């Protein structure tokens, strides 16, 4: 048993005891406590990972230590940034905006024409469960290797999950509320703007959250089928090929950060927009 392993396990036990203590105390119910506990848990995982890699001298090819990954990350920030811009900002984000925007408009159209809704919703429900990501090779063939094909894959992936959520959301207002709007002589668009869209917001944000994680998946997978010599998916597949595993993990860290930041931004916007919803009350 090496020193690293002993230190790692000691840290683990200490952190565990601290977390158990904090969770049971009033401090654990405050905001600081609710941030402290998961952060300590995350740090513990990293420390254990580092300790295990050092103690058992795990080859880098299998699993590099977090410190090695961090070193690689710091050393290749320029490269990582270029990949980030190509994949996340150009591919995923543009596809996300187009896809969710189109789904939103389609949902309003569905809402206006019940016949369309009855027809499109069952189809949409089914399509949302399909592995749309399989379209990636076809769309790359159509739109070329640039970021446009990645955006197209993302549009195809996010459209139906978003559509279902918005359609469900537009039906979320209550009968009584809609009747009230009618007694006030509100037109369709007024009722939509003042009552039904705000009522739909929790569903809209749910759809946006699902779409956010799908968007990154789509943009990265599409790059496995052909890309210019920049992009996260491209970098990962080539770096794996030459066993530059630290770089792969650094890309994964970027993907994780981008995904979490994307999700976090949507969650923040949700908090600001749907402050009235029971799930947001503390």
């Amino acid at each position, binding site marked *: 048993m090496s020193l690293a392993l002993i230190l790692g396990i000691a840290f683990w036990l200490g952190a565990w005891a601290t977390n158990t203590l904090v*969770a*049971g105390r009033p401090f654990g119910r405050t905001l600081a406590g609710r941030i402290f506990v*998961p952060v300590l848990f995350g740090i513990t995982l990293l420390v254990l990972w580092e300790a295990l890699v050092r103690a058992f001298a795990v080859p880098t090819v299998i699993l590099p230590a977090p410190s090695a990954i961090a070193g690689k990350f710091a050393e290749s920030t320029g490269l990582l940034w270029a990949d980030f811009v190509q994949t996340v900002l150009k591919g995923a984000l543009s596809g996300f905006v187009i896809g969710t925007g189109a789904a939103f408009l389609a949902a309003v159209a569905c809402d206006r024409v019940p016949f369309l809704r009855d027809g499109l919703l069952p189809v949409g429900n089914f399509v949302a469960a399909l*592995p749309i990501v399989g379209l990636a090779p076809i769309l790359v063939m159509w739109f070329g290797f640039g970021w446009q094909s990645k955006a197209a894959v993302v549009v195809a992936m996010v459209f139906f999950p978003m559509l279902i959520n918005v359609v469900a959301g537009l039906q979320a207002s209550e009968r009584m509320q809609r009747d009230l709007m009618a007694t006030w002589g509100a037109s369709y668009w007024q009722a939509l703007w003042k009552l039904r869209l705000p009522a739909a917001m929790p569903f809209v944000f749910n759809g946006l959250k699902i779409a956010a994680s799908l968007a990154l998946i789509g943009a990265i997978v599409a790059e496995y089928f052909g890309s210019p010599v920049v992009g996260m998916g491209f970098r990962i597949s080539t770096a794996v090929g030459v066993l530059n595993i630290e770089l792969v993990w650094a890309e994964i860290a970027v993907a994780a950060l981008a995904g979490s930041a994307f999700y976090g931004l949507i969650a923040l916007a949700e908090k600001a927009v749907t402050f009235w919803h029971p799930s947001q009350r503390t």
Partner: protein
Amino acid sequence: MKRALPVLTVLIGIVVIWYAAAVWMNSTWVYDQAERAGTTVSFAEMVPQTMEQARPLLPPPHQVGAELWKGLFGQAVTSKRSLVYHGFVTFRGTMMGFGLGIIAGVLLAMAIVRFRVMDMSVMPWAIISQTVPIVALAPMILVVSNQLGIQGREVPKAIIAAYLSFFPVLVSMVKGLRSPDQMQLDLLKTYGAGEGETFLKLRLPASMPYFFASLKVAVAAALVGTIVGELPTGAVEGLGARMLLGSQYGEPLITWAALFASAILAGMLILMVGLTERLVAQKMGVRA
């Protein structure tokens, strides 16, 4: 019938748009051919030629249907060209990942409901884990399992599928295990039930509707995970590998047929979960 009419209309609409798009997208090739041959083609001559190309940009529905039929029923089931065979490989991977995901999700949910410290430390990371694009990890998982001496692609595929499918199960089970209200919990306490008995007789049965609702999401996620696991990792078997093959050899028909085969597989999986749900509900005495 009243409910089928709108759906049929939409489906017919999709097919019509598809044919129109096929004519439009494939016409370029026809015109190119004609120009090279030094002839001109009229619109009426062009349309039939867009329907029967060997390597169409967008194959029209009947070509995809024919290819799908050939793949499903035109070969021996054990043939490497049979979509039934590849579908079964993908199905096996999906089921392994789905099973792993259910086990992981349920166990984690049990721990989270039981221990407050687990709830506080694990739950935020479970959410973050889903914002990490797993596909970034797919080639990685394959290399690592190769280095560890695991042969074949079953295990890495199952890990990716499990990673995607455990989350819906976890979230729903946490909700479900917490769904019994205080009154019911108090009743069991007055009966002198211990923690284990409360779990088995109250919490677990109460969580079943949540459980099955999450399974439908999880099984679709597991299928996506398996196909993604077959795409970039150079697999030779499975529907994902067929899609990749079609794209690499410039045979769009193969890709399209594999895509539709995976859609059929997805439908079958969801149907299967639905049937299981009904069976369990019947056994538990839920009135329909």
